[in-house]
Each structure stands twice: as C-alpha cells, then as structure tokens.
C-alpha cells in the first residue's frame, strides 16, 4: 500500500504548504544498543560470474561506522538438483564468494530452488528461495517534460514490461543512474503482478504507471534544499534491471520500504521487517536479520540524448 502512504504524504504536504508552520528537525535521542545479530545480504542471480553472500553484524541504530564483519562462517548454497556451491571469504572481508570454475558456469537456473546454509558461532542458519520467471522488457523510453505540480522540468523515463500471465509473479525493478544503484527507501520499486499488491486484479497487464515511472527519482539540489533536481539530464546513463523475486521477497522489500520512508502524520509503528534466515537450533535465542533471494534478471540500458 505504498501508494496510499504516498498519498497521505502528498495531502499533508499540501496542507503544510498553505496552512501551517509545521516543521521537521533532527534531534538527539539516547537509544539502547541492542544485542548484535547476524545480518545476511544474499541475493544470488542467474547471471554469469561470481555470486556473493555478505555477512555482517547489526550495530546500534545511530552507529554510522561500517558494520562489523562476520568472519569464519561456513556458507553454502544447494540447489534442488543437488548441486552444492561453496562460498568462501578468502580475503577476510565478510564477503563470502562463489567463483565459477569456468567463465560459462552459472549458479542460478530458472525454476530451481536454492537453500542457503550458514554455520556461525555454533548455530546453523538456513534460508530457501526459488528462481521465478521475469517478463520481457518491451522498451525503456524517456521524454522531456515541463515543470508540473512541483516536479521539475527535465527528462523522465518509463519502463514498459508486461506482467506474465498467471497471478503471483513478483518483481524488483532496480534502477542505476550513471552506474550508481539508487538505494534509498523511496527508490525501491516492486511489483506484484502489474500492480502494488496481491488481489490487485492486475495480472497480465503492463506495469501500472507508478511502477513504470518508479525509475524516476528525485533528489534535492545539494546546493539548495528547496530545489528538486529532475530525474535525468542529457548524457545520463540509465540502466534498469528486473529481478524476479518470491512473494515473500516482495513482502520483505515492501516492509523495508515502509520502514525507510516512514514519517509524517500517518506514520505506521516501527516494526522489524521479516527475514527468511532461520536459526535451525530451536534452543538458541539468536536470530538473524536480512534476506536470501534467488532471482532471474533482465536488463535494459539507455543513454539520455537530445530529442
């Protein structure tokens, strides 16, 4: 329901503009430091080349230093055909890597299930995922738009892809501008079939507008926070990837987005996002955070040129 959350913010923004002197400011708060937890970042794909599982520890909320590394863990991925892939941390940086023996070898195969196992500090954590199908990208287009409703004049892009027939397909549309992954909460662009949620009755359609246009991101001008920069300008390189994800993966990303964009009058209570990393030892009170996902990927890329 991120569209709804967005609307709330929109209405409220409207009000603030005209009626009120509301304000947001940054304050200092003392928070308890929680017990560090294993944090797993494991997104494997069907793309050629090496695959990485990053293991870190959670750190206290206001700790802006890099996360502590998890070293000495055993990391393996097994697919539903019985193939075992070992991930090694050769350079002790917490990034456990599987490297193909030949350049043509690929880990991820469409339709297969994958199980991740992590042995760390006496506990074994497991997670499963499956590589689902991805739609074909019909086109990645852009156009120049005049300023409208607070959106600045500039180039706006749109990605056209038609959701695959049959309900329940979920996708993560990842956008890269000039090679940099757009990593803010509001940049997370996910689709359940062609829409925002299950039961949306949008199976088999083109992605709905907010998803097609979800690859346009707005940032404030670093020089002047009242100025919003247009999404793209001439010469910008734009790359869009569509990752197939599981339904659970969709909810994980939706929850992450909710937590990262929470605020305003109609904020929802802070809650922990889900994880599929499960400690296999029922007697252990240690829990992991993060996610393991296996995806098929399609890519489109373009450079913005003068019309």
């Amino acid at each position, binding site marked *: *329901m991120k*569209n*709804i959350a967005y*609307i*709330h913010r*929109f209405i409220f923004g409207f*009000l603030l503009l005209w009626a009120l*002197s*509301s*304000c*947001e*400011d940054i304050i200092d708060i003392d*928070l*308890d430091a*929680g017990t560090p*937890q294993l*944090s*797993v970042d494991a*997104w494997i794909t069907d793309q050629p080349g090496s695959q990485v599982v990053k293991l*870190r520890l959670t*750190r*206290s*909320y*206001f700790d802006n230093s890099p*996360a502590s590394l998890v070293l000495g863990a055993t990391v393996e991925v097994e697919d539903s055909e019985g193939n075992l892939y070992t991930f090694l941390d050769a350079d002790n940086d917490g990034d456990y890597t599987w490297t193909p023996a030949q350049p043509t070898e690929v880990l991820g195969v469409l339709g297969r299930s994958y199980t991740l196992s992590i042995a760390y500090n006496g506990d074994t954590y497991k997670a499963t995922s499956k590589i689902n199908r991805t739609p074909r990208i019909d086109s990645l287009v852009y156009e120049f738009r005049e300023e*409208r*409703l607070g959106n600045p004049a500039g180039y706006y892009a749109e990605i056209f892809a038609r959701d695959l027939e049959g309900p329940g397909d979920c996708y993560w549309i990842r956008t890269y501008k000039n090679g940099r*992954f757009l*990593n*803010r*909460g509001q940049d*997370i662009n996910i689709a359940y079939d*062609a829409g925002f*949620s299950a*039961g949306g*009755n*949008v199976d088999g*359609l*083109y992605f*709905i*507008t907010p998803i097609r246009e979800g690859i346009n991101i707005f*940032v404030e001008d670093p020089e002047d926070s009242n100025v919003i920069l247009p999404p793209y300008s001439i010469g910008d390189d734009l790359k869009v990837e569509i990752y197939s994800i599981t339904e659970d993966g969709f*909810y994980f990303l*939706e929850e*992450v987005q909710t*937590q*990262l*964009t*929470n*605020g305003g*009058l*109609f*904020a*929802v*209570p*802070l*809650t*922990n*996002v889900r994880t599929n990393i499960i400690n296999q030892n029922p007697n252990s009170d240690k829990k992991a955070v*993060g996610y393991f996902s296996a995806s098929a990927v399609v890519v489109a890329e373009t450079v913005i040129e003068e019309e």
Partner: protein
Amino acid sequence: MKKIIFIFLFLGVINGLFAQGKLTVSGYLKDAKSGETLIGATVFVKELSTGTTSNVYGFYSISLEPGDYTFVYSYVSYTPVEKKISLSENIKMDIELAEISTELNEIVVTGEIEDENISSVQMSVNKLDIQTIQKMPALFGEVDIIRSIQLLPGVSTVGEGATGFNVRGGGVGQNLVLLDEAPVYNSSHLFGFFSIFNPDAVKDVKLLRGGIPAQYGGRLSSILDVRMKEGNNKQFAASGGVGAIFSRLTLEAPIVKDKASFIVAGRRSYIDVLAKPFLGEDLQNSAFNFYDLTAKANWNINENNQVFLSGYLGRDVFNADNVFASNWGNATTSFRWNHLFNDRLFSNITVFYSNYDYRLAFGEGDDTFDWKSRIINYSVKPELTYYANPKNVITFGGQGILYEFDPGKAEGRSVGEITRIELDKKYALEGALYVGNEQTINDWLTLSYGLRFSYFNYMGEGNGYTFGDAETTAGRRPVEGIEAFDQWESIETYQNFEPRFAFNLKLNPTSSIKLGYNRMAQYIHLVSNTVASTPLDIWTPSTNNIRPTLLDQISLGYFRNFKDNMYEFSVETYYKDYQDVVGYIDNADLLLNEFIEGDLLLGDGRAYGIEFYLKKNKGKFNGWVSYTLARTEERFEGVNRNDWYPARFDQTHNLNLVAFYDLTERLSFSANFVLISGTPATFPTARFGFQGIEGIPQNAEERRNNYRIPVYHRLDLSATLQGKRVKKNGNTRKNEDYWVFSVYNAYNRRNPFSINFQNNPNNQAQTQAVRLSVVGSFIPSVSYNFKF
C-alpha cells in the same frame, strides 16, 4: 415480540405502583427570546425541597400529592421564575425564562444548576456551554467544541492533526459522537485541526466517560451528545463570523410563530480562494477546502406532538489540478417525533440515516486510480421516559441499526486497460433493548440502574472467511475457507447483557460520593494502526473471526463545592478492563485487503487513572485546573514477548489550566495551558543493510512502545473585545458583535508529534532521528463575530 409484551406489562405494573393519587405538573422550559427549549433546566418545589430537570427536549414532568406548591424554574444565566400552583388536577405549565442581560452578566462557566455536580447521580460528565467555549483561545481563532472538551479531565488527543479525541485511554473509534442522535463517523475537518460542529448551531454538548446509563451503547469509552438548536421561533435572527480559516453564517426564523421554525448554518474554509492568485498555473484547478452545512426544522403540531427534521452535510476536499482528487465527509439526516402519551409518559422516536465516505483518485488519461469507501447506517430508536413520581424516572426503549460497510472499490487503468478491485460489501444488524431507572431513595441517596441487552448479527449477502493458524504467533493468518452467504443469512451473531449501575451518596449539602459501573459492548471496530487516526481509516464489523470488544468500567468519585458553589472540586478514579481489543500484526495491510481479518489480533486491555478537577465558577477571575494521572496498557499473544505494554493513547500526566479574566465590561482575556506526557512509540535499537540499502531499523529485543516521545506543553492566549452596546445617541444597539484576538502556542514551542527514524537524505549510510512538529511556531489570529 415477547419482550415488547413484557415491557408493556412492566409499564402497567409500575404505573399502578407509582401513580396512585398523584397529580402531575408538566411542560416545556424555553428561552423567552428565541423560543429554544432549555436542556437541563431546574424545576424545584420549595415545600418539598425536591425537583427535577428538563430533558434534552426541554420537557419536564413531576408528580405530587394534591396541594399548594411554589415552583421555582431556573437555569444558569437566566432569571428564575417562581409560580404558585394549587394542584387539584393535572397541570400543563410551559415556562419561558429570560436571559439575564449581558451587561450584568459575569462569565458563567457552567450552564447547569449550581450544585448539579453534587446532586446529580451522573458522574464522569464533561459539559461546556457555548459561551465558555467561545471565550477560550482557539487554534486560528476558530471556536471548536472538541478541542475545548480536550481541556477537561479524562479527555485528550495525541496531538494537533490527530483526528478525533481519546477518552480515558480509549481509541478514537471508541467514542460515540451523536449529532441530534445520529452517529457521526469522523468528527474532524482537516484531519484533527477542526471539529465538524458549527458552534453557532450547537445548543448543548455533553460528554459521558463513565457511569454511562442504559440508553447509551455501541461504543466503549464515551458518548459525545451534541444537540443542535431548533431555530428561533419568535423572530428572524442571524449570526456569523469571519475568521482566519472559516467564514460562518447562521440564519434562523419562525415558519409559523411559536409553532414552527428552522435554522440553517453553514461554514466554509477559504484558504484556496485566498491562495489562488499566488498559485502557479499548474495549480489553478486545485481545490483545498472544507465546509459543513447544518439544517434543522421543527414543528410543534400540538401540545402532545412535536417533530424535528435535522440534517448535516460536511466535506473536506483536496484536488490538485486534474491528477489528484480526494474528499471525505459525513452526511446525516434524522427525523424525530416527540409524543406525550400522557403528562408523565414522554416518548421520542428517532429515525436516522448516517453516511461516511471517502474518495481518492489520481492519474489522468489512460492511467488512473480511483478508490471509494463508505459506511452507511439506517436506524430506528424509540425511547420512552416515564416520570413515575419525584423519586423515580424510568427510561426504556430500543434501537435497531442496519449497517452497510463498503470497505473499498477501486478502479485502475494501466495504458488504458481497466482493472477493478472491489471488496464485497459487508452487512450487519445491531439491536438493543434497555430499561433504566433513576431512583431517589431519600435526601442523601440516589441510584441509577439499568440493563441493556444488545445483539449483533453479521450477515450476508457476502462471504464468511475462515482462517488457519499463522506461521508465527501474531503473524498473518492464511485464508482456509470461503463460504458464500445469502442476503440476511447470519454469518455470526453475538449478544450481551450490559448492566449499568450508579449511586450518589450525599454526605452533606456541599459534598457527595458517586460510584458508577458500566459494561459496554462495541460491535464495530475502527481499524487503524497509524500514529494518528486518518480520514481513510475503515470501519469493520465484528465477524466470525473478530469478536466484539467488551469493557467493564468502574468509577468512583468525590465531589465537593466550596464557598456557596464558587468553587467546585472533584476527584475521580477509574478502572477499565477490556476483553478482545483489536490489534494488528506487524506490517499489517489494512486498506483494500479482502482478508483483513487475518491481519487483526484480539487481545486484552486495561486502563486506570485518577482525575482531579478544580473549578472557580464566579467572579471576574475564573476558570479551572484539571490533572489526570493515568495508565493504559494492552497485551497480545506474540507481541512484545507476551508482556503488557503501554497503548498508543497512554499519557501518564495530563494537566490543563484554563483561566478567564474580565477586565472591563467589554474586554476580557483568557488563557489555557496544557502539559501532557509524551505518548509511547517503538524506537529501534539496531540497524542493518543489504544490497546497498542502508539503515533498516531493527528492534532486537522485540519490544513494542519501548520509548516515549518528549513531553508536550503549550500556552494559548486570547482577548475578546465586545462591540459597543450603546449608540452615540444613547439607544441600545440591536446588533451584538465582538472581536477575538488569539495566539496559539504562545511561546513558540516545537511540540513533537512523532519521532521518525530515517537515513540522512544526503548520505544513505548515516541514520538520524527526526522530530515532526505539526505546529512549529506560534499562530496568531483574529476573528470577527456578529449576531443580530
């Protein structure tokens, strides 16, 4: 049917028991100038030192042995009328009381008889008259009933911009807001900044938060009973005002003098009109306004029959060009018929229709989204009051409500392809039968007791869902079965007996102890898990999966007046025990979700507190202080490690100071100060990231509401300047007018509404806490008001 026969039998029996050899004096109490009936005016029989008060329709009835009596009719700020009555047959006596002229009038903080707080059996009641509300400093100078009531003990809000109000720790949806007996589902304009009641059209406001009598039910925490004026039936009158936000106009006039009259009152905000010249071309088609229209007519058919027709229509509208549209509002219509069966048996039957709906649409051309939702109800509510004798007033009646919930209908277009999401309508029938008696045992003991039987039928046409167990406790429960039900076919029924009991033990003429117990059942739930309740929250009925919420509340209070009722003091304590409170799973999806029941949890709740109240009624300097110490907690299996935790509306300390000072006849000042503990919120303890996305908050200990936002405090000031009453030639002016100057949040505090945790927009690797202050500075305002 049996029940109805039983009631009539019962009626016959009490009639026989109480009525022998007694004669009745009855009639209506009215304002001499406007003909408006007076609610809660006193009728006192000197010889017997006993009396009664007029009901909400201005009717009174008192039965006595034959003899000679002196009746005193009084109402605060009105000149009392004394009548010698020689009682040898039943007498009809309509009395008109004249308002004490304003020049002599001091500010009167109460509209009740002077020691009503001591003598009445009703406790936990908040009353404010319109004159008092008009003198209080208000946000943007807009006189506001609900914001004023929040300065009384036991009532609060979670902050500016929060829709509705909270009573003794209860949620916004636990208040039954009645406008001329029709329920209003959203009592706020512009989220919570203004309430929907036009103060010029309101006659009486009463909030019950404990010891609730049997005639009220359906909500757990409070009853806000708002009565509109009937309209001047003697002469044309107009009143209105121009303020920073609204302009208001009220017209009232007789249709047939002394027989029939009407009142029409309207308000509209005009920020959008004023802002238009300053908006860019792309916003020229925008709308941003809210309005309400109240209309009422009454006809006094004969001395035994009177009918009223009232209507309310209010709406908030926000449109941005053609790409975004949203609006929401209430509409109610109620028809009432007062009928006197005889001098002692007063009846009223109310038939009402109430609708609340909202619409949200965005997009244009081939790509649009249009979403609508509504709740409608139709109701019949007969009520009879039997004035058996001065010692017993029996009220009985019933109510039937038919609900139609339309949780959501959305139409989306993507590249011209249309899709529809349509959630099934849900239907329910709620019924109640009740009987209650207010019995004066002797000079020092008054009892009020009653029983309400309520019934709820969740029915077709529609689907009944069954859910399996969630994978984790307090997780989403998956749908296991869907069964279709025919129209009127029961999916689930519930019934409850709701006993009510209260007593007033008068210790001496200036002090009393009161106790109240009430059980309440609430069958429809306001589903909302946002920080502030929103206009887009939906109501959902109790179903086969979601049981009704039950509340047992006990209140005990000590009431004391000093110095000839110059000071009023009370201390009340309460304990509330909830069963089957509705809660939400983590990351619940509450909008446009067909399987919403799988995202709801049922748990326990409890609330307790103590409320102190001291009021100075008279003198140039008057006002009140109220302080509440309270705790509200809830517990759900699988949440917060199964422990109790403070609920969203838990506010430990709540202090209000309200002061009025009359400097001269024309100039008066007022001030209020509010101090409230921060409400609970869940804060993170840790963070993690993945795929370059940083700063995901994590609460490793899985505690809910583990912190509090900082304390809220605010001072508001206002000055009221009355226009000159006397013309230069010495004649009195017919028109009255006054200016109100006010400053809200006078010392410019940034009160936190909420604290949010987010990444630094310029550096995703850094996290920060952001305080949201809805009102971030002081707000001065001025308004002009008139009456002629």
